[in-house]
């Protein structure tokens, strides 16, 4: 199991060091600094073995978090734990920075004592932790409160406490998708997938039982068959989507999903991520990028890029940005664009073209002349792909929320009394077109 956990600043100074196992000594702290943080070459693996001691590290801005062990631990678990550790710290004091860590080092030690025992991760849900680890210290708990805390920390529903009350029962659902594309210069889709998240903000009283429904092809087809109506099956078939795979927050009953494909759960209070999913079929690609790069002699490049929006004309895409890479030996660039603003950014080796808004079914164009310094560098320019960023108000996967039902039998509010909000946001993930 995890033998120790260290946090360093960018200079390699230790900010936090907590050792859980006897086989990890102080020299491990230095070994990591010398071999990884101060290493001359760029680190080539997140797992490093130095003298039979393994170091797992992640970096958040310029802070290094390293877990150390001498045993054959579950590597995936160690990384998941490090991410979790970051989440917990962020939830307690915001951004992970040297200053914040120094200001909260007592709290961090307290957290580390609680969520890692002898190197075994324990309950690390911030909701539960916040009930008994506070910066103010615990004052005057009654016996009931204490046992409530412990039963929540160890209980089946470790993510929610009893006795939550809201005057207004309300919930917000955000379907956030990032659409990824790799396209060949000829316009052939090399790979495309959507990775989506359903984020829920729940402000519900009591211990509500929720059921979430979406236009999952498998569910719709099953229902279509149940109604024995072929027409319904066909018409809904258009609207339903094939989900390649999905993963759920630990509140969702996985065995029920496995057997009935229904998503039922008791949600944590406040904001959390209900599910993640991935689709690859029938993706709506909001934009198409058509590049044209021509080398004119050895000292000039002509670039023309057309973008076409491909969705309902009534919808508006926002924050559009096209990034056209330029060679390292660029000496000057002239740009002309029909819409938005375009600039050559020498420090980033790219022409950045920004458009604030663009409606569906439109097209726009940029052309640029790039002058190059002659070099005798034998190596050819690698021609990185043209990448694009945008935000659209629909889900490129086609996912639709069908319902989210809330049942709370003990309190007197029903599904109808809950105010529900649903929002769809599609963003670009890695949206690249080779040129």
């Amino acid at each position, binding site marked *: 199991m995890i033998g120790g956990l260290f946090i360093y600043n960018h200079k390699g100074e*230790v900010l936090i060091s907590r050792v859980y196992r006897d086989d990890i000594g102080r020299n491990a702290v230095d070994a990591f600094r010398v071999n990884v943080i101060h290493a001359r070459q760029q680190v080539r*693996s997140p797992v490093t073995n130095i003298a039979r001691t393994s170091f797992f590290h992640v970096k958040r801005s310029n802070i290094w978090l390293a877990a150390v062990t001498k045993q*054959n631990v579950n590597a*995936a678990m160690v*990384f998941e734990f490090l991410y979790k550790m970051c989440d917990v710290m962020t939830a307690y004091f915001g951004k992970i920075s040297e200053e914040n860590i120094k200001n909260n080092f007592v709290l961090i030690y307290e957290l580390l004592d609680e969520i890692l025992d002898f190197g*075994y991760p324990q309950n690390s849900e911030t909701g539960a932790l916040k009930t008994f680890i506070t910066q103010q210290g615990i004052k005057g*708990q009654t016996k009931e409160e204490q046992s409530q*805390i412990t039963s929540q920390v160890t209980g089946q529903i470790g993510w929610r406490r009893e006795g939550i009350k809201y005057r207004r029962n309300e919930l917000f659902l955000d379907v956030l998708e990032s659409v990824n594309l790799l396209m060949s210069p000829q316009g052939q889709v*090399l790979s495309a997938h959507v990775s989506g998240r359903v984020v829920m903000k729940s402000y519900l009283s009591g211990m509500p039982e929720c059921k979430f429904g979406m236009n999952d092809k498998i569910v719709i087809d099953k229902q279509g068959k149940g109604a024995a109506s072929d027409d319904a099956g066909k018409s809904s078939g258009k609207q339903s989507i094939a989900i390649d795979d999905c993963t759920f927050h630990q509140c969702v009953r996985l065995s029920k999903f496995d057997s009935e494909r229904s998503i039922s759960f008791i949600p944590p209070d406040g904001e959390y991520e209900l599910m993640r999913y991935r689709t690859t079929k029938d993706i709506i690609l909001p934009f198409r990028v058509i590049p044209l790069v021509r080398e004119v002699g050895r000292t000039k490049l002509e670039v023309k890029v057309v973008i076409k929006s491909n969705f309902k004309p009534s919808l508006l895409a926002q924050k559009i940005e096209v990034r056209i890479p330029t060679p390292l030996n660029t000496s000057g660039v002239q740009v002309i664009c029909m819409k938005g603003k375009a600039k050559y950014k020498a420090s980033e080796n790219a022409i950045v073209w920004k458009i604030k808004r663009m409606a569906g079914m439109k097209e726009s164009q940029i052309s640029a002349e790039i002058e190059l310094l002659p070099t005798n560098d034998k190596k050819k320019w690698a021609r990185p792909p043209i990448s694009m960023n945008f935000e659209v108000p629909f889900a490129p996967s086609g996912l639709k929320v069908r319902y989210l039902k809330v049942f709370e039998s003990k309190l007197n509010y029903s599904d109808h009394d809950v105010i529900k909000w649903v929002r769809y946001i599609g963003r670009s993930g890695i949206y690249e077109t080779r040129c």
Partner: protein
Amino acid sequence: MMCDFLFSLVCTGEIFELKAELNSDKKEKKKEAVKKVIASMTVGKDVSALFPDVVNCMQTDNLELKKLVYLYLMNYAKSQPDMAIMAVNTFVKDCEDPNPLIRALAVRTMGCIRVDKITEYLCEPLRKCLKDEDPYVRKTAAVCVAKLHDINAQLVEDQGFLDTLKDLISDSNPMVVANAVAALSEIAESHPNSNLLDLNPQTINKLLTALNECTEWGQIFILDCLANYTPRDDRESQSICERVTPRLSHANSAVVLSAVKVLMKFMEMLPKDLDYYGTLLKKLAPPLVTLLSAEPELQYVALRNINLIVQRRPEILKHEMKVFFVKYNDPIYVKLEKLDIMIRLASQANIAQVLAELKEYATEVDVDFVRKAVRAIGRCAIKVEQSAERCVSTLLDLIQTKVNYVVQEAIVVIKDIFRKYPNKYESVIATLCENLDSLDEPEARAAMIWIVGEYAERIDNADELLESFLEGFHDESTQVQLQLLTAIVKLFLKKPTETQELVQQVLSLATQDSDNPDLRDRGYIYWRLLSTDPVAAKEVVLAEKPLISEETDLIEPTLLEELICHIGTLASVYHKPPSAFVEGSRGVQHKRLPGSSVESPDTGSAAGVSEAPPAVIPSQGDLLGDLLNLDLTPPTTTGPPPPASSGMQMGAMDLLGGGLDSLVGLLNTVLSEAVSLRCVIPALQNLSSHYTTCCQVWLPAMKAKGLEISGTFVRRAGVIQMEMTLTNKAMSVMTDFAIQFNRNSFGLAPAGPLQVLTPLSPNQSIEAALPLSTVGPVMKMEPLNNLQVAVKNNIDVFYFSCQYPISMLFAEDGKMERQVFLATWKDIPNDNESQFQIKDCHLNSDAASNKLQGSNIFTIAKRTVEGQDMLYQSMKLTNGIWVLAELRVQAGNPNYTVSTVLVVLAVFKSCAGAAVITIYYQKK
């Protein structure tokens, strides 16, 4: 900033200040002072001097302050054991506190303090806490048992904590169950043979129930534990799989990977024609692909594991090639792993896409990645025959870019393509030759030289090209030198007239001016071959080469099986068994897939022991030289020996080599025990006496933190002894020596402890004789007389392996009665016999017989037929196996002068426990 100040303090003056603050009456001031102490501790400064003052702050109802003091205690208690006792009372009191959080905190902290006196006081509170009414306390106590076991295993057993821990598996609270499982698994790892985690269908059922309810971490502990269970039949295996599959949709990647591990393992037990088997295969792909959208570090872990899964079950991901395409901003470690998997998944169906991608990658910036991409193109060509032509043309395009490292890498892979598809793509040689000058890496140079040599007849100026390399011969790396030597010999055999001078030049460079034994040996072999029999030389050097196989870097199957059992763990990231990177015994047992038929000869532990045992079998000439221990033996020649005799020597070597293999095949059927005739050959070579192997360095000081061990084996008055010289080449004194053997072919084991009584000071040597018994546990080793030894001292445990002369095992009572000998000899079927020759033996039959008797090889009878002396001999191995031999000595010359060449043929006969050797001992 207050805290910046905290982090920058502490020199001796400040210690006093802190002391005063710690003893202050004001609570707030106290707390600030303890915070400062902890801050200094973090930075690595020594604040142990404040121990009593900090401990004084422990008695407080402020939980935050208490936690800080506990943190301090965990760090310094070990250095101040006597003072740590002061804390015991508070701990014991806290364990009775009405607040469960404080009870748990106390028991958790006490377990972290590794001081014997505190541990004694821990037992009672721990016993109470294990039965506490509050689940939070119980789950903490469960882990505490593991802590205590790490400090004092005996105590845990004596106090019966293990049973209580086992009871917790049936606890009503899922988190208590999970922690109990984690603690038991860890304890069980250090007791490989104990039945601690007694997994039976009932407990498995309990675990599976808890699996649905506990935290993500608890699910990992339980799944990892489940993976160690072997279901009784396929039905049980299927029902477990059904209950584990829902975990594949968990948001935590570690839960997913651990579930994959369980499924991959239990799948082995399912019949392949079962519908469920196919369903399960289909269910595995999506979660594995999803892992690739996790954070990069997890992607890396996932990819390393997918690499294993793809090798074991390629069908799972065969349609998912696209997800492994490299993204421009993937970290380099993810890119390299993806590339590996792409090659593994490449097939005729997707090769066009793969090639297009690889070509794209070959223009990237990162040198390592580009090289790997180029290499991948070559591997595709070898793997998918239909694509070979496209691959070659892609490679040629890449060579045209003239990017130095791309060209070099391309040439290396083209060499492999030539090997795979001979006489197909040789038209590109001209293009390759154009780039000769730009090659500066040994591997690329060697590849190019190989190509020139192999196709010398098609390259007009092959001799000029090779000659140009020859100029800087001594500056080249060994790889290039060897290749150049071979290439020029090939060239000479193809175009003998023009290249005589060149070949002489290279032979003399290799044999006379080089220090490298490999190079010299190869030089001599070629020299002798060429001077004796050019026709034979042609057959040997220009022999048809076997085609190379498709997959070059597959993980060896037994290792792969073991790694599959370790999915998700570090072992699967390193692609090494845990024994290769974990110290001590913990977690080093080898895991196997259930129902697998592959029997492995202990590959894992061999890897754990030293990599290369010092080679003991000296070359043929030497062996026979000391076979009969004759002083007249001419020393092994240093210059090139006369061609005629060297030719003979080569032949004999082949005969022996070939004989060996057939013998092994024959013996596998006959000898049920661990003995194969492989042992007998070295035995005969060592026939002469107990002194054959001279003292060898078994464990070089470099590998063993300064301890050097050299030694030899002898048999004295029926007792086998291992005589060792231990030398301390380190700076510090070494004490507490102990020795242990791994199981071996003849059950050798130390008959007593290693007698090194005085501490070994630096630069001192000590001789120790260790008597050996032959009643230890038996396991077949490779080679048969290999012995793996572990030596321990106060510094560490070291492993090495050595080989003992078989003659050491010949027992004193190995003289068979004449009648029995005759009967046995006749009974043995002829096809069980084998023969070989011994040369360069300058003894007459009587002298030989005497010599052999010294090694417990007894002459039963002697007869003379047509001037040939026939000696019938018997010997008995310590494990009761008899070896019978016939030794034929031919005296060609009536004067009994000892001639230079002796041919000895041996016939091995063996039957149920008896092996017969006939040795023809011939004299000219």
